């Protein structure tokens, strides 16, 4: 058979973002030894261009929406939403990385190449409709991010972060993969649509088999999104990794993993929903509670945001528990809002922390409002959005999630979730009080003035947060339109 039976032009267009990102990543790797390292903002600029190209690529792919490569990919609205989200996360990560890498005297070529590969992997994940493709995308994304977490290789904390991320990430992969094997064994296919047909069909396999497979996949994905009881790696990894990388890890891979979480559990495992709903209910509640209460005790701001990101994973799980298209759309909106506000907050931390990332404590933010009013104001927007104050993306994110939960009659989960948000307000407000009501600290006084790149890195996520808070329907309409997945 000629090869055109398998690959045609339409398939390649549907695969365009991944092609652009991996070609650009490889190009950076080749250029890296040829260019004078110290001089260059070149790699950052090239990767920005590649990411913008990939953004247009995903729009072009959506114009040709449909299955690709024999149904292994499904380029639908859902995939396009998450592709654009992870690419925007990439852009917002590259911007603060310029200054960060220069300050740590780190090499730039490999950093940007790995970032592009990781994003390419996430694009594969979110558009895959086949468990093996999901697995491969997950691993492309994970393996690059293990290296990124330990990118400052002489830093003991970064080493430890990379090691923990690597060991627990691979452990989780093992569980996920065993789940895939059992699905293959039970249904004879790894395609999600066909697997669903087999599970609901006349000769449906034993529910115990499917249940075990679902549980194994839940463990694997639960680790990756740092949901309770698999959250223990997150604080150490997020604290030890270089700050722009932490910003990336807590948003990009997390959004992509939630995307496959939704796709797998809302398509193939939807018929056994009554079985997994109570489990996800408990995980959602305990992720929120444990994340928020542990965050109350932290003095290191990166660690505090790490615990808060566990809590935020809990909120998204509430949307999954709702088991409806409204819930899926709410989760999509929330992940977008969370990406903007969290990357922004981490970009401010990366700016304050200085050479060698010395200043990460709560006290180091004291008096920031006097020394750098603009930085303080932007951090205020991000923190208010993390709390969920109206006019910010975080507010509508929480609002839609709890609305979806109520529509699915999850009254108790909603009540407990709202109480949790109130607890969370306390530790975010502590940072605000520190910034506005204390005398300037050494770190706040010594912070370098904002460069153009850093300004862009802080203002863009702030704009994103505000736009999602003032015109939520722009994003929500698209999310609502694309939330009914291929079944």
């Amino acid at each position, binding site marked *: 058979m000629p090869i055109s039976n398998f690959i045609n032009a339409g398939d390649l267009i549907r695969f365009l973002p991944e092609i652009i990102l991996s070609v650009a990543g490889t190009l950076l790797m080749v250029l890296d030894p040829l260019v004078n390292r110290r001089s260059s903002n070149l790699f950052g600029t090239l990767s920005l261009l590649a990411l913008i190209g990939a953004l247009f690529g995903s729009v072009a792919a959506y114009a040709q929406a449909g299955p690709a490569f024999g149904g292994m990919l499904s380029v639908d609205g859902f995939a396009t939403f998450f592709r654009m989200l992870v690419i925007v996360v990439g852009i917002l990560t590259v911007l603060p990385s310029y200054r960060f890498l220069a300050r740590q005297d780190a090499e730039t070529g490999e950093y940007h190449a790995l970032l592009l590969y990781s994003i390419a992997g996430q694009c594969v994940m979110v558009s895959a409709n086949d468990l093996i493709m999901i697995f*491969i995308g997950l691993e492309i994304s994970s393996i690059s991010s293990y290296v990124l977490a330990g990118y400052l290789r002489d830093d003991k904390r970064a080493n430890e972060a990379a090691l923990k991320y690597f*060991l627990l990430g691979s452990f989780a992969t093992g569980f996920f993969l065993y789940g895939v094997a059992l699905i293959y064994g039970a249904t004879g296919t790894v395609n999600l649509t066909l697997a669903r047909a087999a599970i609901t069909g006349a000769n449906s396999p034993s529910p115990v088999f499917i249940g075990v497979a679902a549980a194994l996949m839940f463990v694997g994905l639960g680790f990756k999104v740092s949901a309770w009881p698999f959250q223990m790696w997150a604080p150490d990894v997020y604290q030890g990794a270089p700050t722009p990388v932490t910003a990336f890890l807590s948003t990009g891979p997390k959004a992509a993993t939630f995307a496959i979480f939704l796709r797998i559990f809302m398509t193939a495992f939807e018929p056994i929903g009554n079985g997994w709903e109570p489990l996800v209910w408990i995980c959602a509640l305990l992720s929120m509670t444990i994340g928020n209460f542990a965050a109350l005790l932290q003095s290191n701001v990166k660690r505090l945001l790490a615990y808060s990101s566990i809590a935020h994973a809990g909120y998204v799980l509430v949307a999954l528990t709702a088991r409806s298209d409204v819930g899926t759309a709410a989760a999509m909106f929330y992940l977008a809002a969370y990406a903007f506000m969290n990357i922004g907050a981490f970009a401010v931390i990366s700016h304050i922390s200085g050479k060698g990332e010395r200043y990460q404590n709560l006290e180091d933010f004291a008096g920031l409002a006097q020394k750098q009013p603009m930085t303080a104001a932007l951090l205020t927007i991000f923190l208010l959005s993390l709390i969920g104050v109206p006019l910010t993306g975080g507010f509508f994110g929480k609002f839609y999630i709890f609305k979806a939960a109520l529509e699915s009659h999850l009254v108790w989960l909603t009540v407990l979730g709202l109480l949790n948000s109130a607890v969370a307000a306390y530790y975010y407000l502590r940072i605000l009080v520190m910034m506005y009501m204390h005398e300037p600290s050494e770190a706040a006084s010594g912070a370098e003035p904002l460069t153009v790149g850093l300004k862009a890195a802080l203002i863009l996520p702030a704009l994103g947060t505000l736009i999602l808070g003032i015109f939520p329907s722009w994003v929500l309409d698209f999310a609502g339109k694309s939330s009914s997945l291929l079944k």
Partner: protein
Amino acid sequence: MTQVPISWFLTLSAVLFALGVAGFLFRRSIITVFMSIELMLNAVNLSFVTFAYEYKQVNGHLFTFFVMVVAAAEAAVGLAIILTVFKNRATLNIDDMDSMKD
């Protein structure tokens, strides 16, 4: 000639996987922990091959190749990370990796 039943292979695969999980949770040397992860992945490979044989499909065999490639990439990155950890700390005991606890 009598054949070994399919269920034996699946049981073996489950036992190997469980051993891998136990090794991951209870061993204290990073290298052994890493080997336990490899054992888990290979246990899954055995399941894939068994199911492929049962269904008389070639897909399952192909999946094992994907898993092997991924495991190799993971090993390359993992060993590099373990090496940098050893260079900075001169220990490979999991319990010593606690520089960030408050």
